[in-house]
């Protein structure tokens, strides 16, 4: 069936090129049927890509080793879910997934984008078609998943660290996020090409952007959890270039989601919003380039290097195209209104934007520095975690504080006296929390203490917003407290959904600060029967067990855990060896205390033939709040995204009325 896959990809390439060229011509010459035909080509490109993807999935499920891709990435013994996850486990398959998601998003954008207006959609189609053409070209010419060979008896197997349940969800989530950022970019470019200065493109892409940003956020958290459990070094984020590659577009999209509100509410920052959309899209392609080019040294990167120049050319081309359009349309993007005061909601959004973009560019510089230093001095100087951690503190702490300040300040301007009065409660709560933490011994880390005090301030300001809003709704006749609360959120889902996301960021910050600045580490070699101390925990090495699994051999050191003399059961840390892949992985033991959010995390670093094991044990306070933050984040994003029937009606009156008048 490889022929069917190849033919379907060729077809997808042809259809994408048709959507680009014919769609561009139709938009330029204002031909209606030709524009509709180009839209259909984009939908058909998705169908063709779906067929190609189905062929690859079937080959993986049947373990058809006549496909070079299948033979290179799985083996006969590999459990089925992991065999299927090899779809995105290799270069060619992951590029096919990019194309599948992109063409699927494009088809959906065409189907759902009618409110954007035919004139705008006519320009969006060739732009999305252009991106589809690039990825279709890659999977047809550079890295095809449908190359065939005489089938070997068994495949090479899958990289051991990828054989983890998180790898079933983490890469697709990231792809849904990365690729989703192409939609707002295409609509923004379409609006510039159509010389539209209204907010249609923003309204049309609001949910797309939120969804892409949400997927990217969840994808990163899943990736962090994978690193925590699978990579086995005791952390969840290592400032690896490929990890940074996913963080940068997320930061740019976060900045955009805030600044776009200023455009919607005040008609300001039109140019800045387009810049952020361009930045987010360019960084999403740059992230894909980093993962695939082999240009940086990362545990997450694919090894092939031939694809890099294609990506560099595409990034350069799309940036040149975007910036040319932006500069030529500057006169029509000028805002009529100005910032009235530096103490206002929009001003705090602006400060938040500057900090987010500064953090994003600082990370970008850290990622690029080894390449720059190699080009200039002939020596690649890798930028390590201290650089990133320093700037995370410099930009992250003020960002955290702004999350608390922003909701308390009115739009347009606020008098110092009113600000002082509003700040009273959150400030009091945060100072009391800081004092209590200091008394409890949290002063061992000053950045930690400051961070926690800021977190308390933000949580207090969010709580204050909900309490005051609910009380006002109740006074307006919303009935009971729960009814008033539900009515408050329903009336302004983006605002209160946003606050829930802020609460998730606070949980994340509390977890990160606790688990990194207040963690305890202990290392010791033990023989069976010996005990080591890690924080309050006593770990007694009981025995070493060996057992086979479907495709690996497990060795596990069993440890009995006690705290304060109370037995807490046993945990197992060890290693897996994969004979087909000829790889060994660390399999860490994690004992979570869901009551305190703390983890006991044990690595069996070295297992000697005589049964002695060198253990590294971490006690990570509050680390589980990081994963809890993921659920709160999803909840907040869903609230913000949930359609508001009244707003839909208002927008329908505004835009569909115009469309009807135009199309009449």
């Amino acid at each position, binding site marked *: 069936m490889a022929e069917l896959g190849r033919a379907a990809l060729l077809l997808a390439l042809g259809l994408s090129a048709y959507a680009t060229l014919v769609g561009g011509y139709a938009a330029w010459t204002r031909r209606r049927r030709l524009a509709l035909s180009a839209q259909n080509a984009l939908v058909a490109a998705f169908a063709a890509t779906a067929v190609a993807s189905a062929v690859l999935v079937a080959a993986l499920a049947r373990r058809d080793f006549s496909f070079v891709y299948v033979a290179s990435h799985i083996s006969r013994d590999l459990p089925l879910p992991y065999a299927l996850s090899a779809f995105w486990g290799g270069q060619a398959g992951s590029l096919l997934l990019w194309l599948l998601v992109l063409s699927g998003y494009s088809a959906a954008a065409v189907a759902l984008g009618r409110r954007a207006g035919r004139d705008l959609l006519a320009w969006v189609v060739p732009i999305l078609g252009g991106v589809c053409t690039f990825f279709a070209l890659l999977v047809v010419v550079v890295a095809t998943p449908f190359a065939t060979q005489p089938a070997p008896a068994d495949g090479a197997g899958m990289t051991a660290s990828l054989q983890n349940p998180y790898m079933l969800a983490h890469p697709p989530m990231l792809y849904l996020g990365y690729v989703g950022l192409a939609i707002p970019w295409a609509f923004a470019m379409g609006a510039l090409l159509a010389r539209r200065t209204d907010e249609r493109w923003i309204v049309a892409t609001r949910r797309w952007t939120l969804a892409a940003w949400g997927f990217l956020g969840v994808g990163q958290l899943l990736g962090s959890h994978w690193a925590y459990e699978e990579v086995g070094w005791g952390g969840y984020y290592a400032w690896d270039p490929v990890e940074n590659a996913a963080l940068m577009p997320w930061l740019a999209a976060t900045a955009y989601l805030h600044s776009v509100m200023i455009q919607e509410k005040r008609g300001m920052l039109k140019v800045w919003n387009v810049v952020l959309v361009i930045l987010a899209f360019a960084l999403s392609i740059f992230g894909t380039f980093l993962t695939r080019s082999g240009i940086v040294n990362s545990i997450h990167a694919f090894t092939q290097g031939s694809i890099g120049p294609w990506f560099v050319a595409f990034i350069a081309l799309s940036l040149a195209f975007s910036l040319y359009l932006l500069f030529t349309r500057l006169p029509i993007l000028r805002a009529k209104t100005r910032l009235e005061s530096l103490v206002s909601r929009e001003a705090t959004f602006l400060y938040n934007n500057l900090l987010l973009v500064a953090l994003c560019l600082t990370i970008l510089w850290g990622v690029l520095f080894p390449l720059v230093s190699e080009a200039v001095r002939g020596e690649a100087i890798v930028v390590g975690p201290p650089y990133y951690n320093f700037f995370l503190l410099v930009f992250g702490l003020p960002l955290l504080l702004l999350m608390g300040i922003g909701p308390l300040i009115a739009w347009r301007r606020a008098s110092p006296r009113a600000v002082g009065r509003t700040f009273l409660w959150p400030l009091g709560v945060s100072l009391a929390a800081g004092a209590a933490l200091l008394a409890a011994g949290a002063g061992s880390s000053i950045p930690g203490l400051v961070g926690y005090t800021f977190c308390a301030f933000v949580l207090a300001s969010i709580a204050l917003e909900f309490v005051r809003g609910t009380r006002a709704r109740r006074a307006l006749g919303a009935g009971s407290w729960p009814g008033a609360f539900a009515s408050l959120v329903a009336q302004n889902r983006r605002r209160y959904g946003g606050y829930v996301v802020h609460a998730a960021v606070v949980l994340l910050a509390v977890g990160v600060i606790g688990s990194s600045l207040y963690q305890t580490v202990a290392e010791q070699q033990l023989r069976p029967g010996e005990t080591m101390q890690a924080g309050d925990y006593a770990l007694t090495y009981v025995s070493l067990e060996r057992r086979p699994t479907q495709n690996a051999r497990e060795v596990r050191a069993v440890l009995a855990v006690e705290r304060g003399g109370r037995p807490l059961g046993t945990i197992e840390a060890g290693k897996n060896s994969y004979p087909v892949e000829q790889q060994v992985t660390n399999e860490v033991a994690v004992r979570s205390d869901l009551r305190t959010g703390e983890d006991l995390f044990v690595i069996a670093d070295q297992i000697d033939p005589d049964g002695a094991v060198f253990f590294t044990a971490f006690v990570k306070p509050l680390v589980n709040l990081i994963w809890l933050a993921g659920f709160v984040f999803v909840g907040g994003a869903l609230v913000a995204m949930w359609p508001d029937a009244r707003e839909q009606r208002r927008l329908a009156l505004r835009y569909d009325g115009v469309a009807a*008048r135009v199309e009449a």
Partner: protein
Amino acid sequence: MTALALVLAALLAAACVVYVARPFLREPEAADDRLDEPGELERRRLALEEERDRALAALKQLEFDHRTGAVSDEDYRALVGSLRRQAADALRALELRAAETAETTEGTVVARS
């Protein structure tokens, strides 16, 4: 397997071609093949509607924030006047535009009859 794959590929290609050609198959002789775009009048109306919605939403937000206590009486008094003026200006401009459009349409109808 190859023959079956090629047949399936040919069917897929044929279906895609038909789907892409569908706008022309449905309307072989279109009376009007122009891709309409809003004229200056429509663009201006849209801008005014956005302005009106923005001012009304800001007023609503201000009223609510004042009620919750997030905006002081002093700030409320300083802001509400200008927001009301903005909303009124946008509404007046929209009404004026609507009247002009109606007159233009009426004139066109009279001239045609």
